[in-house]
């Protein structure tokens, strides 16, 4: 993780950061971008870091308010016996607490939003042993755009996402791995770090 972020920050600081194109400074801009996700605390454990790839469309509502509409594909472990693949689809609202006109190089923000998650768990030893779960989630966090061009920015984001769904986990009873889905609902959270690149395409209004 550190080996990825340090060069990125170095690159960002070396670049001649520029003010946003005035035509794209206010509301109405529509952007497209790609992102990498790092998921910590999966199953409550630090060492099972999930890795994800995705993209987002960004629609700015006003000078201080932006929205991200995103999709992520994540892969990680599930205990010692299985692995999981997650599809996240959702949206976040970004609020810029500082005047964007005054923050020419770095534009920090706070965010909150909703997410839907499809989790597919499979046994490490038998691919036919698997389970699937849908859940909804809310997320909140902080981030910052690094303005690296007239229309381009790199964003670093940290957010906590908490899922509401059924508890699904792997068991190994000695005769093989099984997945157990409990009745009722359960909360399951994880910490997400994102590195994103975004390019402003056009002004919608």
């Amino acid at each position, binding site marked *: 993780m550190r080996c*990825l972020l340090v060069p990125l920050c170095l690159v960002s600081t070396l670049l001649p950061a520029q003010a946003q194109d005035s035509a794209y400074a206010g509301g109405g801009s529509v952007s497209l971008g790609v992102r990498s996700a790092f998921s910590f605390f999966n199953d409550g454990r630090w060492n099972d870091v999930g*890795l994800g790839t995705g993209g987002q469309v960004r629609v700015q509502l006003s000078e201080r308010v932006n929205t991200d509409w995103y999709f992520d*594909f994540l*892969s990680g472990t599930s205990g010692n016996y299985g692995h999981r693949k997650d599809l996240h689809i959702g949206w976040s609202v970004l609020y810029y607490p500082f005047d964007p006109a005054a923050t020419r190089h770095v534009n920090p923000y706070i965010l909150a939003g909703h997410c839907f998650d499809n989790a597919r768990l499979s046994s*490490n030893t038998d691919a036919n042993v698997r389970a699937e779960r849908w859940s909804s989630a809310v997320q909140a966090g902080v981030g910052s755009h690094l303005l690296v061009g007239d229309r381009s920015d790199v964003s670093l984001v940290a957010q906590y996402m908490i899922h509401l769904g059924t508890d699904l986990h792997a068991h190994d009873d000695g005769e093989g791995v099984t997945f157990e889905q409990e009745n009722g609902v359960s909360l399951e959270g994880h910490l997400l770090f994102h590195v994103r690149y975004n390019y402003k395409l056009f002004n919608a209004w």
Partner: protein
Amino acid sequence: MVRSAIIFLYLPLLVARVHAQAEQPFVRAGLLKFTATICPALLLDAGTTNIHAGGSAEYFVEDRISFKGETFWFLDGQQRNAPLQQNSQLSFGPQFHHMNGRLDLSAGFAPGLSLSRPNATMDAAAAQVRLLPHVSISGGVTFYVWDHMHFFLNARYVHARYASVPEGSVALDELMLYGGLGWQIRVKHR
């Protein structure tokens, strides 16, 4: 003899033309680049070498920022009993450029997807081809030798993990070093 003389006379003109072009800003928004090459990749955890056929398409969305898509098709391992049977990759991400005449230094990152399969020596039943996310950082140098051709040398580190074999996760981290000849056209003129 006549042909040799013509070439000899034409050579200074060609050199002068190249130098004249070098004074103009060569890379700017609207440039589209392609490459195709062979990419050796050091699989860091195993210490073995993977062989990929690679290609890229890169478009300059701004004067110093490009959006680059790269694909690496896994051909084989260099060693016998290589730890991977498949590890092809597709990635998209930005590249940030620093230009000095015809010399272009670049660095960037790219999220991507890998199509991976560990070797059957681990567990033939469990080690299936899987689609996995990955992230890569890369840097490189490009020298534009002509309006439509360039030489390039790139280094790329890719981080991925195959998390579904009985022994645990397989680290798919690779260090790639590749270069060669590329082509470029200007699709948008100012």
